């Protein structure tokens, strides 16, 4: 049971909502509406994993981590409440600063490597994807994403100098490995840039990839290894290495087991006279070996009662039992009538 519990816990961690990240933010929106006819700020999240992530019961807040950590410490010293419960309480106290993504909306199941946009218009009656708070123009904004357990998933500090019609976006969509490299999602300014839509590279892309996804490997091999020779060398190297390692290991295993085999062989000599005699002969004369085996077989009286006489018939076929299906089939003994 413990093992099952551990495995279940690990699975839950593995499928983690920690792969959700804040991908792009616009504070002063003057060029797109939010489906209600309003031009409001928006926050784009990205599911960086390769599995569907349910984001219900996650929290989006403008409270800075220091405030939340202090709140947690303060409240945890007074009660045994879990962090998600504390966050819910914080949301109830400050609905204009904390938004909990509601349960029950199928659209909160975010498919792998896709985006979802939340409108910071303070109008929660408009639907699941409308936040309970707004972002303030002309000053620094902070947005954080907390998971269902109340742990920080991602955060961003939006600079105060962000102009109307500009967005603050990740330079490229984060990869889960990059994000989890240090076990946290601390905001790193160098991974973000201001976009104004003036060019393809500076496009504002709510709900879309910040950078057009391309298979970098294919592009690289196309441009730098047009003849394929480097890929061939590398790949053959890997194939050889893998099989060479297997060869070395099983060579060693073979030697290790050969000693045991010899001891066993001595014991088996008594039990299996047929093999032993054949082995001692050591010759290549198949017919002689077959004759010795048959003689021993009959001598040991392992023969069942049969009405006919079994005879040897010299085969002229150039096939062995390995190569010829016919030789593998049981043959009906020939009956020789002597009268």
């Amino acid at each position, binding site marked *: 049971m413990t093992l099952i519990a551990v495995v279940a816990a690990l699975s839950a961690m593995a499928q983690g909502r920690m792969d959700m990240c804040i991908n792009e933010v616009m504070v002063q929106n003057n060029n797109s509406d939010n489906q209600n006819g309003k031009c409001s700020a928006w926050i784009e999240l990205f599911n960086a994993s390769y599995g569907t992530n349910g984001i219900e019961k996650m929290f989006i807040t403008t409270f800075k981590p220091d405030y939340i950590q202090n709140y947690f410490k303060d409240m945890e010293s007074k009660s045994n409440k879990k962090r998600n419960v504390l966050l819910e309480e914080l949301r109830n106290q400050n609905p204009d600063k904390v938004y909990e993504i509601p349960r029950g909306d199928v659209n909160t199941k975010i498919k792998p490597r896709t985006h979802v946009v939340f409108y910071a218009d303070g109008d929660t009656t408009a639907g699941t994807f409308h936040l309970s708070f707004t972002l303030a123009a002309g000053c620094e904004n902070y947005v954080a994403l907390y998971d269902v357990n109340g742990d920080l998933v991602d955060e961003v500090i939006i600079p105060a100098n962000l102009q109307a019609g500009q967005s603050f976006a990740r330079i490229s969509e984060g990869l889960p490995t990059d994000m989890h490299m240090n076990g946290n999602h601390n905001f790193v300014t160098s991974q973000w840039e201001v976009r104004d839509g003036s060019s393809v590279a500076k496009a504002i892309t709510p709900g879309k990839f910040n950078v057009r996804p391309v298979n970098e490997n294919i592009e690289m091999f196309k441009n730098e290894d047009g003849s394929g020779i480097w890929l061939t060398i*590398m*790949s053959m190297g890997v194939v050889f290495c893998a*099989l060479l390692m297997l060869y070395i290991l099983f060579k060693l295993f073979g030697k290790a087991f050969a000693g045991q085999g010899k001891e066993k062989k001595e014991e088996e000599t008594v039990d299996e006279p047929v093999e032993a005699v054949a082995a001692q002969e050591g010759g290549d004369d198949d017919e002689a070996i077959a004759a010795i085996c048959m003689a021993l077989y009959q001598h040991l009286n392992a023969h069942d009662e049969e009405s006919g006489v079994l005879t040897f018939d010299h085969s002229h076929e150039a096939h062995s039992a390995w190569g010829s299906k016919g030789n593998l089939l049981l043959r009906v003994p020939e009956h020789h009538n002597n009268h």
Partner: protein
Amino acid sequence: MVLLNIAKNLEQFWHFTGFYNVTLSPESLIMLGVGLLFIYLAIKHDFEPMLLVPIGFGILIGNIPFQPGNEIGIYEEGSVLNILYQGVRQGWYPPLIFLGIGAMTDFSALLANPKLMLVGAAAQFGIFGAYMVALAMGFMPDQAGAIAIIGGADGPTAIFLSSKLAPNLMGAIAVSAYSYMALVPVIQPPIMRLLTTKKERLIRMKPARKVSQTEKIIFPIVGLILTCFFVPSGLPLLGMLFFGNLLRESGVTTRLAKTASNAMTDMVTIVLGMSVGASTQASEFLTPDTIKIFFLGFMAFIIATTSGVLFVKIFNLILPKHKKLNPLIGNAGVSAVPMAARISNDQGLKADPSNYLLMHAMGPNVAGVIGSAVAAGVLLGFLG
């Protein structure tokens, strides 16, 4: 009025029939011919019948002309054929086939003489040689990789990789791979004779030692860990291959091994072959690219056979006299199990009627299965 309605209904029905729709896509008749040819080759000439009959019949199923929109065709979402095709498209069937292959394969020939693993590795040059030729012919790297895997002479691996790298070419790649696997007895012997001398063909190899059961049990476990640490992208194939082999060798899961190697493999082979055949629709299949793919597949088999045989010859230069390998087992490094090993044996017997090479050739043959799966993993890692 009634007659008019009947005429209208009949006309509607006429438009529904294959006879009418074939006038709109006459090229499907060519594909029906290809399907019939495959069935003929399989039944009359015994060319890989287990594969060519399902594929050939699948081609017939996939190329009967019909009016789209009724959830009939293999590419129409929701149709039964489409559901079966998902196993090919998403790469579910090949690992299941590999499970069966693992449960069927006795690796003792390889374990008895582990250096034969290197022969299996060398023959994979067929894949990468074909990759370079494919690039020179103008294919993109991912397409070239998908086509080149034909050189692994392993149908499930070819389907698995092409479904990931170049799904639009998968039908042609699969048919090409299976066709050349069936033609291995025609393609390989002349190359083997050309590259070996009479003296080399007469080399007698030392009888293999007996492999203990413990070694056989350790092999799939160590094999999985080692190869997949090198090439994690090969996990679906290698994982299932070694898992199937452990079922076989553990001695305590005989029932599972039997099911994996018989019933399950048969079922998956039926569905896989039929789906692949049905996916080869005229619009996708009858293109200049298909001709190029068939040419590249042929090249891949030639290069693989050549590299396997030449590697053994070179390897012999450093081996002591009593441990020399017969270069006729080099061709078996292309996986095509056990056909390629049988060819080694046949050629060996032609040179010396008492020199049986089958067991020796099974070593590189099964190493080729591992090698081609590793190569597929490498290509997927680089180009996926």
